[in-house]
């Protein structure tokens, strides 16, 4: 089952993890990734502002999860992505994947994050303590990480 949430509220990793197991004894492994707002040493952040494209963002995440399901034998996929104004140290994103075996869970979790970074419609703006704002630019390294999945089985 695929479950997607795009929300302002924080999420509870422990709760999300327990729901991925949810008493299903066929689950042999759960891989989870949590992304956090990282502060910048040379230009401290007051906050990170995240915006999305309501409707398309959820559909994009759903599609990425469906691609993972087609590629690995998975049981459940949970994706939570926050929007709004987040401060350094706060959680931004959660990806959790359950499967019978670890290889599928590890692979799918990484795949979903890599594809999400380059295809889900979210935009981040750094709000600095000096009052200035700066839109984060897409990184070539993220693009390369996503593209390597096209060349692997």
């Amino acid at each position, binding site marked *: 089952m695929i479950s997607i949430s795009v929300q302002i509220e924080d999420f509870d990793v422990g709760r999300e993890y327990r729901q991925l197991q949810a008493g299903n004894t066929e689950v042999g492994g759960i891989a989870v990734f949590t992304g956090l707002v990282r502060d910048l040493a040379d230009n401290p952040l007051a906050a990170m502002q995240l915006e999305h*494209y309501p409707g398309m963002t959820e559909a994009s995440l759903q599609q990425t999860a469906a691609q993972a399901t087609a590629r690995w034998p998975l049981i459940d996929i949970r994706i939570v992505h926050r929007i709004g104004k987040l401060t350094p140290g706060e959680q931004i994103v959660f990806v959790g994947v359950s499967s019978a075996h670890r290889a599928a869970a590890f692979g799918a979790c990484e795949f979903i994050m890599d594809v999400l970074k380059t295809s889900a419609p979210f935009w981040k703006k750094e709000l600095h303590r000096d009052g200035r704002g700066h839109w984060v630019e897409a990184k070539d390294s993220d693009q390369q990480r996503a593209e390597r999945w096209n060349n692997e089985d």
Partner: protein
Amino acid sequence: MKILFFGSLREQLGTGELELPLPDGVNNIGDLLTELKQRDAQWQQSLGTGTLLCAVNQVMAGEAAAINDGDEVALFPPVTGG
């Protein structure tokens, strides 16, 4: 038709949404960009970066993608979530 702008593009243009009838002679995204760039120097510059992405009815699309009145077109810079 509805045209949506996100991220830095929304900020540069000073608007997140336009509602307008499909302009005469506009058949695809490329035509629409040409039309919008004629608004003023800011639109010319912001829509001419060459890195903009586009979606038609919430599905990614290229400049050759056909558009019709009633479509929802979105223009935005490369995404930076996660």
